């Protein structure tokens, strides 16, 4: 057994910068060994290193408290080096209060009054507390609720625990201290990791670092089925289907296979005008497509048949629509000749409508995932938030025109693309202020409707198309893009991130193609319909 002199000969400071005091380090190791249950290891570490888990004052204080020697408690506390006066007062107050209660409990009122008078009031604590203690003198029953929580031993133990909270931490190492320190370090590494996309087990053996390949970076497939510009693309909520719509007046549903290949399923034909917008039902069984200046159609996904056409006797143009979470009602916004927001069921019957002079022209509409908040983009520059069905409203004005809107999957945030080549991120709440939570820049946008989306695990990334045929990906905390994907030859109209597979991204472009981007995999040639090209 090495003698305890050896602790002197060891380094007194650890770590590359000499920040860690060896004695403190050993104490927290001993404490975590005790808490894990390795009592023998802990006590042999104590004797080997000569460092005791609990300081001398701790043991003395424990002894004094348990035996009720209050005077020596106070003198022990006073002898603690480096204690500041407010902790001293709080600790003394706790000790004398316990003494006071015990005296009352045993019926010695005169000594109790003396304690109150001589020891507690000179401390200078909050006078209401002192007065309440005086009240207990008079009303013994009131004290019965607060004072006698169990036997004397239990009360003294809880007094000791309270004391330890008030005194400086080196008297007694806070429980779970080592675990807390390690956890803080790991969390800090994880949050500063730029490309953290695929959830990975945290290992303590090396610093956590994600590589740029963990977000979608290579084009694995190019889908060529559309015959004209592809304007909109979106994954279903369960990530198993992809829908794309094009100015060739068709929409195509694709299946996402288990090996991450995207396969053509069916083409939805029937529109006479280019399809500008489509929306998956929350249960992914139905799809609504909106023609540009034309009626909307409802399709069944499994059988790819047309279920209903939302036509209108007044031939109104439906500019956008949003599903309610129950998948049985749809909220639509229409314009020309008059602006109208209406709810309709799956057969096209109008259930409820807001119309009139005051209703503005709504270009984009969305419903939060719990169905309680409706967001609309009115007159291109205003964001309108409204609690549904009737409730508080909030109107936020933007400086420049808003071209598109997208919600995050957890329903907490939304992003809007502006004409001024910025994307603004805001919190989805009727009670927020007007300030923007985050701004993302770097992409190009001027004339066309460019759409963006949230994505990645935990929705921590934002991706957007751009007029310079590139796809930009940002981390939510940072204004500049962390990744730019090149491959399309014309403007990228819309991007969508697979909600179930955070390593997969799809983009739609005017070059008639839909491209699938994967994280960290090599593009593979395939001989299926819609052969993929290695770009």
């Amino acid at each position: 057994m090495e003698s305890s002199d050896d602790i002197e000969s060891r380094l007194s400071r650890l770590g590359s910068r000499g920040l860690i005091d060896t004695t403190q380090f050993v104490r927290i190791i001993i404490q975590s060994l005790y808490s894990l249950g390795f009592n023998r290891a802990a006590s042999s570490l104590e004797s080997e290193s000569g460092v005791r888990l609990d300081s001398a004052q701790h043991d003395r204080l424990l002894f004094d408290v348990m035996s009720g020697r209050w005077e020596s408690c106070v003198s022990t506390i006073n002898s603690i080096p480096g204690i500041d006066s407010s902790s001293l007062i709080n600790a003394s107050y706790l000790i004398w209060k316990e003494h006071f209660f015990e005296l009352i409990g045993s019926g010695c009122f005169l000594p109790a009054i003396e304690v109150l008078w001589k020891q507690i009031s000179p401390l200078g604590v909050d006078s209401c507390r002192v007065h309440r203690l005086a009240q207990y003198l008079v009303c013994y029953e009131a004290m019965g609720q607060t004072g006698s929580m169990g036997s004397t031993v239990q009360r003294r133990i809880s007094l000791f625990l309270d004391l330890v909270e008030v005194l400086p931490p080196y008297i007694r190492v806070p429980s779970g201290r080592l675990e807390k320190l390690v956890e803080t370090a790991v969390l800090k590494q994880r949050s500063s990791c730029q490309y953290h996309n695929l959830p990975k087990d945290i290992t303590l053996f090396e610093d956590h670092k994600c590589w740029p390949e963990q977000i979608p970076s290579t084009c694995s497939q190019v889908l060529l089925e559309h015959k004209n510009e592809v304007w909109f693309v979106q994954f279903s909520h369960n990530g198993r289907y992809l829908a794309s719509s094009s100015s060739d007046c068709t929409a195509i549903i694709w299946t996402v296979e288990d090996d991450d290949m995207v396969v053509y399923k069916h083409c939805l034909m029937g529109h006479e005008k280019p399809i500008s917008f489509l929306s998956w039902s929350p249960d992914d069984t139905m799809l609504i497509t909106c023609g540009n200046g034309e009626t909307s159609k409802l399709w069944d996904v499994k059988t790819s048949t047309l279920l209903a056409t939302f036509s209108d006797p007044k031939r109104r143009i439906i500019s956008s629509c949003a599903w309610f979470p129950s998948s049985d009602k749809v909220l639509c916004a229409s314009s020309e000749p008059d602006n109208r927001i209406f709810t309709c069921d799956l057969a096209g019957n109008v259930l409820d409508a807001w119309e009139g002079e005051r209703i503005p022209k709504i270009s984009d509409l969305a419903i939060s995932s719990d169905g309680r908040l409706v967001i609309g983009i009115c007159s291109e520059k205003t964001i309108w938030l409204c609690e549904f069905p009737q409730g508080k409203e909030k109107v936020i004005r933007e400086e420049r025109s808003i071209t598109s809107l997208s919600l995050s999957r957890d329903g907490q945030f939304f992003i809007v693309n502006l004409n001024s080549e910025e994307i603004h991120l805001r919190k989805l709440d009727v009670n927020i202020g007007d300030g923007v939570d985050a701004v993302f820049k770097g992409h190009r946008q001027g004339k066309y409707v460019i759409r963006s989306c949230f994505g990645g695990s935990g929705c921590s990334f934002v991706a957007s198309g751009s007029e310079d045929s590139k796809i930009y990906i940002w981390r939510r905390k940072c204004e500049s893009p962390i990744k730019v994907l090149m491959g399309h030859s014309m403007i990228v109209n819309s991007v969508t991130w697979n909600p179930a597979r955070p390593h997969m991204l799809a983009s739609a472009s005017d070059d008639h193609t839909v491209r699938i981007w994967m994280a960290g995999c090599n593009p593979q040639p395939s001989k299926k319909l819609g052969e993929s090209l290695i770009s």
Partner: protein
Amino acid sequence: MGLLFLQSLPGPKVFKCRCCKVDSAPHDAIVSKNFSGRYGPAYLINRVVNITMGPSEDRHLMTGWHTVNDIFCSCCQQLLGWKYEKAYDDSQKYKEGRFVLEKARVMKIG
């Protein structure tokens, strides 16, 4: 080319592009009706929408040297007029940042 983002103007009186009928300028943004453009009479307007701008050029107009950008309708690419970027004469400074809209290329609605 993509889904064009077209702004629509409220208000009863607007000017629309004669070819493709998208909104171009609100009537109440007119500053002066006495201008002449390349194709005849023109307006000086504060604000136009749904346009794309051409490159900056130095041109000698009736009122002197100016730096202008031609403006085109973003939908049908028709030349609608120009924007004054910089005027070199002090008396012409009021035109900077404003647009000239050719009467022959737009039609008034309302």
